């Protein structure tokens, strides 16, 4: 029986659990057992879905942001359970923990995996490269565990049955603590999460000259504003509202893409969107092929005209 470990990050518990789907795609051809690692967290059992076992560590000396201690703990667990794969959510902490752990275990690591291709002979982990302009299929050397990180909302786990969950209370023997203290934690200013929006009005390079106008249209549609990487790179908006591979994956009911060409980097962040309207001076821009309606023209002019129309009606 093969074992797989999923690190459950308190920054993003639900998404950590979704990684069960990644485990399934990697190991489905054989019998395997899924372990979730919970450190100093309380989660209702119903959220733990189809994990076979939860390794539950309660030790207040292990801080959630202490990579050194976390690496030591997971190394110890690896020695004990001989995991075939370790899957870590690509959160702020996960993206620091995974490389450190991979180096400790002397195994390769593939970051931000978006797709898994498996046949009898090989396992290919696919991730975007060159800012998402192309997808690269990556193989790691034969040594175990296979290690990868996965961003939020990329895989969806369908719970069809709840297994009998085995809770393993575990006390690690040896770990070093890093000299680091959390002094303060405050919420980012942004009041909404684009991953939960029903309507997103999103701006790109073609809306750069007057990005503020987009807010006006969003208000009239009871929508929220998001943006492509171009806008973020230009400092016009905070990274928290960035859609795409290097930003967030979104699934609104309606997505209005204003002056966004739709490079793979951006489109990788659009998932299960029923309705897309795109406005672009180039009707052959990649985003147009995904759209229900393509408006050929200047994004800002369109925003003004549609806002006007909405106001009158």
């Amino acid at each position: 029986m093969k074992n797989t470990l999923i690190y459950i990050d308190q920054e993003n518990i639900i998404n950590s659990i979704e990684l069960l789907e990644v485990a399934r795609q990697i190991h489905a051809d054989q019998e395997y057992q899924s372990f979730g690692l919970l450190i100093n967290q309380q989660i209702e059992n119903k959220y733990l879905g189809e994990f076979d076992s939860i390794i539950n560590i309660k030790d207040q000396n292990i801080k959630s942001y202490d990579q050194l201690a976390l690496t030591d703990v997971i190394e110890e667990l690896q020695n004990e359970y001989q995991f075939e794969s370790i899957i870590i959510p690509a959160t702020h902490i996960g993206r620091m923990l995974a490389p450190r752990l991979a180096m400790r275990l002397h195994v390769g690591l593939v970051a931000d995996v978006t797709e898994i291709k498996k046949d009898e002979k090989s396992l290919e982990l696919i991730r975007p490269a060159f800012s998402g302009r192309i997808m690269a299929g990556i193989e790691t050397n034969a040594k175990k565990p296979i290690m990868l990180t996965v961003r939020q909302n990329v895989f969806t786990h369908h719970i069809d049955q709840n297994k009998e969950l085995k809770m393993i209370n575990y006390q690690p023997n040896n770990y070093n603590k890093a000299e680091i203290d959390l002094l303060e934690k405050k919420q980012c200013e942004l009041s909404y999460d684009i991953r939960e929006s029903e309507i997103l009005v999103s701006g790109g390079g073609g809306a750069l000259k007057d990005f503020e106008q987009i807010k006006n249209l969003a208000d009239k549609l009871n929508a929220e504003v998001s943006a492509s990487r171009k806008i973020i790179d230009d400092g016009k908006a905070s990274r928290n509202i960035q859609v795409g591979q290097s930003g967030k994956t979104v699934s609104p009911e309606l997505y209005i893409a204003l002056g966004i060409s739709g490079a793979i980097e951006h489109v990788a962040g659009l998932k299960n969107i029923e309705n897309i309207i795109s406005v672009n001076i180039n009707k052959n821009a990649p985003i147009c092929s995904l759209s229900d309606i393509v408006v050929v023209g200047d994004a800002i002019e369109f925003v003004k005209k549609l806002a006007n129309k909405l106001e009158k009606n």
Partner: protein
Amino acid sequence: MKIICLVKYVPNVEDIKYDYEKNILIRDNVKLILNPDDACAVAFALELKEHQPEHEIEVITMGPKSVKPFVEDLLRRNVDKASIISDKLFAGSDTYATSKILSHYLKDKEFDCILTGTNSLDGDTSHIPSQIGELLGLNQMSNITKIDLARFKKTKAVIEVENGENVLTYAMQLPAILSLRKESDYKLPYIEYENMSLDVSDRLDIISNQELGLAKEEIGLKGSLTKVVNTYNKNFEEKDKVVVENNEEGIDFVYSFLKKKGFV
């Protein structure tokens, strides 16, 4: 204090075009730039030195020798010393092998703090800073948007980190690796006019594997644990789209679509 800035020169991905017919990346005429996150690391170090000139800054980069003119420009901006780690034998190194090479060079160096960027534009894995941290036995922090200048001391730094939802303030013991994000907005100063063509060659070293002495099995493709076996262009399901103009008719069409679907 002795500060090391680890930086990378990357192809400006904005210049990379995709040929949708041939399904290939067109990388001709793509310029190298200092990775934006890494530029913030150097900029912070220079800001610190501006206030307290006794700080010593060394920039270390790994890459082709063609980055030399760029590195020289950093030296003309008041960086004290620079090293380019460059050898054909390093080509093809993945993040694992790259971290090993850089750590091998760093392990004999004296420093109080290593500054890096968080992500690179090209690879975007963010592996190197924490992997070097592991190899050197140092703590590391990514996504730093601010380093408190007044409280930046030999044994301790106070930093602000953004994780998407929260702004977190940490006190971290030094030496450690601090990885900035371009939102930190530290900006590289201009080169002063009189330094524009300053000869900086005595402050620049080029280090090959002859000096480092790493075994061939540890570096390049051989020393890598991951390899790219395929590249794909991502294909998306196409919709039956309606193309309209940006005129009254077009706006009416969009409006009735929104109405029909219940969005207005």
